[in-house]
């Protein structure tokens, strides 16, 4: 935010998406679906992929149409475009990856109201050219996916003793149910946010 005038480079777009403006760890956007689906790595990858797909396409179209969308109806137009792509994801998942569609369930249609997507539309795609907007969608989507995978790997490993569905913990390991429960989700998310902030603060201290 403070470096608004910094030159827009591919490196900056990706650093923003993955770390400096990470949708989950820094901007704390889309917390509802984050906590709900991060109980297994498969779900995290499915959700991350779906959100990335919607982000890239909605950013692209909103950027292309940015001069045709009157500012008075911009939010309504963004939502129509986003909802369209989310519905595409929903139908494609139901047709070709039904198991993922079943385990993500209601959270796929709810991507429409995921604030990450609207936030990128409003703060980036509506002000930038199509190519940077697509890259921004990709970077933010990757940041979201990476964060989800980290949270879900911890929760699946300790809460279920598996990773990607394969048993990795030694036999006789009794899963910590707390980690899978919503409470555990909040605790792990909090700890990870603290870790990321500590890392960023340390880096900034060094730079100064």
């Amino acid at each position: 935010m403070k470096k608004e005038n910094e030159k827009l480079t591919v490196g900056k777009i990706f650093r923003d998406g993955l770390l400096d403006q990470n949708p989950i760890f820094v901007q704390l956007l889309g917390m509802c679906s984050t906590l709900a689906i991060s109980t297994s790595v498969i779900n995290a990858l499915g959700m991350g992929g779906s959100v990335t797909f919607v982000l890239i396409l909605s950013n692209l179209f909103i950027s292309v149409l940015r001069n045709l969308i009157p500012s008075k109806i911009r939010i309504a137009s963004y939502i129509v475009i986003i909802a369209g792509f989310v519905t595409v994801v929903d139908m494609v998942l139901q047709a070709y990856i039904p198991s993922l569609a079943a385990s993500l369930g209601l959270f796929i249609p709810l991507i429409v109201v995921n604030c990450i997507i609207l936030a990128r539309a409003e703060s980036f795609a509506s002000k930038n050219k199509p190519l940077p907007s697509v890259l921004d969608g990709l970077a933010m989507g990757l940041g979201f996916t990476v964060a989800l995978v980290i949270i879900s790997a911890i929760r699946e490993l300790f809460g279920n003793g598996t990773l990607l569905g394969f048993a990795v913990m030694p036999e006789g390991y009794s899963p910590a149910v707390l980690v899978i429960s919503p409470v555990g989700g909040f605790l792990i998310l909090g700890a990870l946010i603290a870790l990321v902030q500590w890392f960023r603060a340390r880096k900034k201290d060094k730079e100064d």
Partner: protein
Amino acid sequence: MNKKQIVALGLRLALFVAAVVAMLSVVNYLTRDTIADRIRAEGEAARSELMQGCTFTEETNVPFPEDTTVTAVYRAEKEGVFVGYCFDVSVKGYNEIGMIVGVTADGNVTGVKILSQTETPGIGSKAVDETGSYLPLFAKHDIDSMQQYFVSGATISSKGIWNGVSDAVALCELLTEGKGA
């Protein structure tokens, strides 16, 4: 803002909506058959799990009672002998719940399979969880005594499911009447 401006904005928005609708109809056209096939296959898998080793034929000309939630009836036969029915049921929980109920000829529920649901995750979803504590009870108790069980916090979903299963049992009774069952 005058009237002209409002109409112009409305038309612009309508144009965006029309473009999105056009895109969605193409995707729907491409995925419709795959989804329908998958739903049919899931239904078949659920039926053969509820009535093991049976072959199924869909009953036509079923005298559906008024207000029943049953949408389709499949007759189950094992080596040519009539065993019972599987009922496709669509009930209202918090949202629409699609399920299949297996009922034997003498009116016992063999099980309940949930095919589609969008109940609230963590709340209503407890009632529709096939590995949860509620759904397996239907195979163990008769339908009237099931009225006393609910998933706490998911009363509406549980009630919806009970209504559907009870409609299935009632229709089974109606269909087997006078057949010596």
